[in-house]
């Protein structure tokens, strides 16, 4: 009887898919009593394109062109994961130089994604000045990408066997100038955003993640590090050149929105530091940027299975891939961090918080719908 009574007193609203406070095209079904959320349920599927089916129909090289579309804000992680899985199955070793360039691309993409997150998080508290600034700063990174790969958003650059193009002339110099610029800008963002009194008031103590369920439930990325766990795929199981680079894993203990924001701020700093190291390392690296790979129809994968993962801007992203001896991939499964964050975590965090916190919490989890439903 008690439950019936509470149900009758609530309002049911759909936060999304058409809503300014939602991250991408998804929706959260909320039951509200006043402004407090009683129940929350995530709905996805608005972006389902059936990538896993499309990849099965294509040859390896054809599939390569569509995998980067799986996650829009940070497409390069998909290319790297796909390439790593194919290389693992086909037994291709990439050269040191290709690995260094890949590392650089991934770190640039990470900064871009974190800048985009900063815009979303700031606009969720109504600080409209921050997205205006930081999305323009992210555009400078996209400009470098355009020079390197020819594409602004989708690069299709990291290919199984290496990377597709040599660095243009003067690229590293521009990159180091960009690092200087971004470092200077970060001080401004500290003042206007991270140390802003209104943001602190809104973010501290909101969306606290239970530390006991972090590891078993597989939360990753900033959620993990915001709860005081010092884990990062780049350190735990180093891939590419990360074991040669020097960087710290930022950790905060509070587990709330503000802790995750500070972790991200520090991650941008660390990524800038990584890029600076790479600018020095890349000229000394050797090897062909592209290994010899079989031709289109002859690129066959053996009957084997593999699982690769890396650290994206939101958490650990993994690919499962199975070959069957033909030139087509038998099965590819994408496991993004958002799948767990948007369901197991978000639904728990929202219950008991207020409607005003929904956009804050969603942004701080970094939920990216296209990688949930592929």
């Amino acid at each position: 009887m008690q439950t019936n009574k509470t149900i009758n007193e609530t309002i049911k609203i759909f936060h999304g898919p058409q809503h300014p406070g939602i991250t991408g095209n998804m929706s959260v079904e909320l039951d509200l009593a006043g402004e407090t959320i009683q129940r929350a349920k995530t709905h996805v599927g608005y972006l389902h394109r059936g990538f896993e089916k499309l990849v099965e129909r294509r040859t390896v090289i054809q599939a390569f062109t569509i995998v980067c579309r799986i996650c829009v804000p940070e497409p390069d992680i998909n290319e790297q994961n796909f390439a790593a899985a194919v290389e693992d199955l086909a037994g291709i070793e990439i050269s040191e130089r290709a690995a260094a360039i890949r590392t650089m691309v991934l770190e640039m993409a990470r900064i871009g994604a974190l800048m985009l997150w900063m815009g979303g998080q700031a606009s969720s508290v109504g600080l409209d000045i921050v997205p205006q600034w930081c999305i323009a700063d992210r555009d400078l990174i996209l400009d470098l990408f355009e020079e390197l790969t020819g594409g602004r958003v989708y690069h299709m650059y990291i290919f199984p066997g290496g990377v597709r193009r040599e660095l243009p002339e003067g690229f590293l110099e521009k990159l180091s100038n960009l690092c200087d610029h971004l470092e200077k800008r970060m001080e401004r963002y500290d003042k206007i955003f991270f140390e802003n009194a209104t943001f602190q008031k809104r973010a501290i103590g909101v969306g606290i993640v239970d530390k006991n369920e972090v590891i078993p439930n597989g939360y990753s990325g900033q959620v993990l590090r915001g709860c005081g766990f010092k884990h990062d795929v780049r350190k735990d199981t180093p891939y590419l050149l990360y074991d040669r680079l020097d960087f710290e894993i930022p950790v905060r203990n509070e587990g709330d929105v503000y802790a995750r924001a500070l972790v991200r701020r520090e991650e941008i700093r660390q990524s800038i530091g990584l890029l600076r190291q790479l600018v020095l390392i890349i000229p000394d690296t050797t090897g062909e940027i592209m290994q010899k790979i079989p031709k289109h129809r002859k690129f066959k994968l053996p009957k084997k299975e593999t699982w690769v993962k890396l650290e994206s801007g939101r958490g650990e992203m993994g690919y499962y891939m199975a070959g069957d001896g033909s030139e087509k991939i038998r099965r590819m499964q994408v496991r993004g961090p958002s799948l767990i964050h948007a369901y197991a975590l978000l639904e728990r965090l929202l219950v008991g918080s207020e409607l005003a916190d929904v956009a804050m919490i969603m942004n701080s989890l970094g939920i990216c719908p296209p990688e949930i439903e592929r």
Partner: protein
Amino acid sequence: MKEGFLIEQERLEHEAAASLKSSGLINDIIRYFRKKSIFVLAYGTGCGAIEMPPTFTSRYDAERFGIRGAATPRQADVIVVSGYLSFKTLRRIIHTYEQMASPKYVIALGSCTINGGMYWDSYNTIKQLDKYIPVDMYANGCMPRPEALLEAFIALQKKIENDEEPSGWERYLENIEWYRQNQRAVLGEDIKPAYEADWYTEGR
């Protein structure tokens, strides 16, 4: 009391709306205002939505042309369909489009809206957007750059000012049967999005 979208639907199906077709000074002035002020619905339907923030922020700054975001469909003039549409989103897009107040315009972004694009053999995306809702302007590419998006907006402004052909919402009213038939062909009989009322029965 009927809900808003039901009234809108009835009006779409039974009654032809008055159009401001005849030219004259007053209509010129109205068209000038329409051209100068375009509210874009904040609905990122696909990957093209990633290029919307740059378009509306300080690098490309669409607001200098009078283009700004609007939160609800009631207030918006333009809906930007940014890329591929899955069935589930198409249902919401139709719903949203019918909630908007006329005159309203549709800008379709990316090659996926023209002929399926990358996802030509995908089982869950539609291939030609203009079979389901009328499109006023296409911006092609995968994905279109912010410049292309701005150009589409400016071309739309020109179209509004010159009042060329019947614009999309007029075509939608005239050919509502044809559009409905196409929509039903892919979505089934319930075009309105159906939400399963989950936890009331589940006992979670």
